[in-house]
């Protein structure tokens, strides 16, 4: 028997009259604002490990989150029980932060037309499971066939179809369906004397399933295997300040960590970011223009509407080194007397929205990739990154470079192991000395964590040269 697609029976996500009554209940104690967020997310995962499709998985999360705002105070309650009594209980719980009178009334809401940066004819939840399984089976085959040093392959395909409805007491109603997919392949290779190295690659986005006809599992698998093999025989990296060149594309996660988070409005309002109060000031080299754009077609971080019901935007954050503005959600924007930039995001209905990035990238410059590499006498070429983290308060950021090479007299040389980059965001940006004119393909595998909430993001960076970056390594002294 052929497996059937998992079909979700749903016409409208949530009844509008009930939404309007819930808003009324939330305002009973006379708050300034109330919002109802409804979510229904169907997700699928297929996991291949040790040459076998180990499991197929699927999940359904549904619930309602109710937010009440009174001044700078927020009351929040959620319910995964869609029973009316439970929902009204949540609305009243959320309203407790408000004091004073109000009368229960219904708040009329009207749908706002939205732009469309992704729209799938066939939602991912409706795609045959067997097609999803075939992707991981093909990836495994391709990775193992690519090189006899490949010892372990694990491949995962995950997708979700998320439906949201946001309504608030300003009469605003927005609904969106957000599909998201990702394939990921991890490869372990074994070289001489039992040396083991790993490679990881993947991607996807808010694309139709046919995306994997061109972004094939074979392509992903070969890249993961190539990265793993490239690391065999790697030598220890020299520790200390060096010139680094970042390869285009995925390196954008460095920008995301080093700069992006510090420009989120909640940190600015609380004065906990190094970038607070610096609009109009020079915070980076003239070559640096940073953009956060939620409107990139089909990209992993794109949003037709954010989780407060506002359309995503194109925002210039830093222009030729000068700080232009921050990323705002509606709540922080109002407290700071400005307007939202459509940056209010939350992981799911159990969470409060926060200002978050969407797709964050550095605008292209003028140099070619090869000229930039040739310009470096001695340094490190960072081809691929693992995880990274930032302390937005002191600006310290850290990155594990999963694929690195030494640069000697303008040429890329031996692979390096155990390389970590560390820096202070604004200082690193001031030390950007060359920006590439190359495209910056984002494969679509970024997930950003903040305050315990994960959201998908897009990243991008052309080839970049940064001077005086601290390279963490294990070797001190010796010939440079």
């Amino acid at each position: 028997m052929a497996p059937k697609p998992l079909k979700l029976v749903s016409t409208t996500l949530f009844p509008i009259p009930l939404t309007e009554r819930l808003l009324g209940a939330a305002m009973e104690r006379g708050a300034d604002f109330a919002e109802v967020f409804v979510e229904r997310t169907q997700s699928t995962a297929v996991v291949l490990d040790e040459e076998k499709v180990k499991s197929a998985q699927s999940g359904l999360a549904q619930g309602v989150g109710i937010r009440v705002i009174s001044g700078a105070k927020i009351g929040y309650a959620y319910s995964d029980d869609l029973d009316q009594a439970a929902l009204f209980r949540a609305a009243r719980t959320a309203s407790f932060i408000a004091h004073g009178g109000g009368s229960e009334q219904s708040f009329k809401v009207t749908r706002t037309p939205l732009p469309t940066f992704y729209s799938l004819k066939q939602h991912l939840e409706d795609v045959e499971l067997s097609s999803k399984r075939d992707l991981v089976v093909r990836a495994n085959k391709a990775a193992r066939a690519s090189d006899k040093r490949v010892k372990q392959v694990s491949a995962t395909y995950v997708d979700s179809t998320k439906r949201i409805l946001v309504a608030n007491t300003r009469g605003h109603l927005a609904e969106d369906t957000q599909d998201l997919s990702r394939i990921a392949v991890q490869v372990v290779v074994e070289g001489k004397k039992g040396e083991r190295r790993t490679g990881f690659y993947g991607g996807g986005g808010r694309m139709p399933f046919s995306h994997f006809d061109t972004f094939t599992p074979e392509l992903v698998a070969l890249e993961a295997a190539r990265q793993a093999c490239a690391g065999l025989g790697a030598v220890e990296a020299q520790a200390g300040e060096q010139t680094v060149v970042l390869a285009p594309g995925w390196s954008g996660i460095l920008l995301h960590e080093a700069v992006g988070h510090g420009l989120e409005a909640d940190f600015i309002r609380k004065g906990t970011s190094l970038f607070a109060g610096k609009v109009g000031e020079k915070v980076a080299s003239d070559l640096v223009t940073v953009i956060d754009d939620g409107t990139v077609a089909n990209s992993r971080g794109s949003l037709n509407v954010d989780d407060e019901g506002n359309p995503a935007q194109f925002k210039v954050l830093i222009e030729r080194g000068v700080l232009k503005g921050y990323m705002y959600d509606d709540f922080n924007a109002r407290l700071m007397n400005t307007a939202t930039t459509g940056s209010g995001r939350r992981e799911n209905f159990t969470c409060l929205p926060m200002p978050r990035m969407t797709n964050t990238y550095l605008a292209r410059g003028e140099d070619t990739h090869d000229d930039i590499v040739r310009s470096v006498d001695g340094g490190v070429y960072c081809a691929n990154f693992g995880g990274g983290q930032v302390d937005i308060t002191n600006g310290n950021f850290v990155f594990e470079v999963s694929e690195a090479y030494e640069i000697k007299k303008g040429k890329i040389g031996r692979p390096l192991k155990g390389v970590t980059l560390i820096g202070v965001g604004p200082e690193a940006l001031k030390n950007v000395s060359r920006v590439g004119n190359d495209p910056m393909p984002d494969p679509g595998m970024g997930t950003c964590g903040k305050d315990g909430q994960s959201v998908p993001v897009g990243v991008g960076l052309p080839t970049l040269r940064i001077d005086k970056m601290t390279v963490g390594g294990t070797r001190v002294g010796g010939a440079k």
Partner: protein
Amino acid sequence: MTTNYEQLAKKMVARAKKRGATQAEAFIQVGREASCRVRDGEIESLTEATSKGCGVRVIVNKRLGFAWTTDFTPSGIDAFVDRAITLAEVSAPNPLNGFAESRDLGALPDVGSLCDSAIISLAPDWKIKAALEMEKVCRAFDPRIKTIDSVEAGENVNEVYLATSAGMQGGYQSTSAYLYASAVASEGEQLQTGYWHDVKRFLSELGSPESVAREGARRAVRLLGAKKVKSQQVPVIFDPSMAAGFISSVVSAANGDSVFKKSSFLASKLGQRVAAENVTIVDDGLLPRGLGTAPFDGEGVARRRTPVIQNGVLTSFLYDSFTARKAKQRSTGNASRWYKSMPSIGTHNLYLEAGNKSPEEIIKEVPNGFYVTAMLGHGANIVTGEYSRGANGVWIVNGELTRPVQEVTVAGKLTEMLEGIDAIGSDLHFRGSTGAPTIRFKELTVSGE
């Protein structure tokens, strides 16, 4: 009307069996959470909710399917169990597939109470008062504390229910309460953050709001003026929190699945000396009043105490049922899960046994070295055994803590780091469900200028 979740789990298993599952397992989680954040003497946010979810694993013709849902309506539950059956058809048959075996099920240990009635009946304003007090203490600690990142207090009550077709059924309720304070100090152009938290199963064991706030503020102020240092190889001390993180990284390499795949630097070292002689690392699923204590693991297997490294010798890997079968071992009761995911190998109460030196002595013995109090990045590669993380802390000169340091990394090989632990403090401190005392590494690479 209250739902009998234990019965509901059994019903899910029965439905799965009826639909063709040869084995089935249902896992239900029900929780209640309440939390409060404050700012400028006022509530910033107050969150309260109850939530629930269930996950069901089925084996159909040796194939594994897994589904989860938050929809507990009768039709929702039927649909989700049936979905798990459909999903199994897509995966590959594997004779090793299956859940906990009967020989691993059976008598469960008595782990004492996991539930504090004081937390269950906590007054709604407890968290508000605690958070307000923490903010006040943070701000009063030092004039250089100019703002706070967040202060939060809250409590959780959780219930877990499990039923399997092998006849296991059980459930337990547990509580926890927590305090969190993150302060920001500023001087000149520099901002520094410091945070501290405490989380306990029993309210009476939770640190006072004042002590949590003071420690958060102290950690922020201590870093003011931090600078890079020159790259060098020196003795490095991890405070108990940082040491706990290090222990977690090391033990993730004892994960039975990584070991089976030889994707761990510890894979071939069972029974061998892997660490300094005074190093004993234990995962104790039975630790009295421990945050990670419960009678059974995510598959119903009795929890136990497992020494992973004993007196420097690698004594055990950690297994769940599937991995144990694959590796021809027994489950160590280390299946961790929540309803949205299948079980995977994890730890319960993991700690490094205390030594007998005071942290002051450990610092005093260092002529030139680095005392690490905060770290950035993930750092440990368990396949290659390389370790490198961003670090903040205080530089030690002639046995004294002197100037603050930031923007450096500490790096080494995990094997050499374990062998090079030359001092262990008497100050074992649990941070959630992981605990460690102060430790000193004989020599690590500090990368800076």
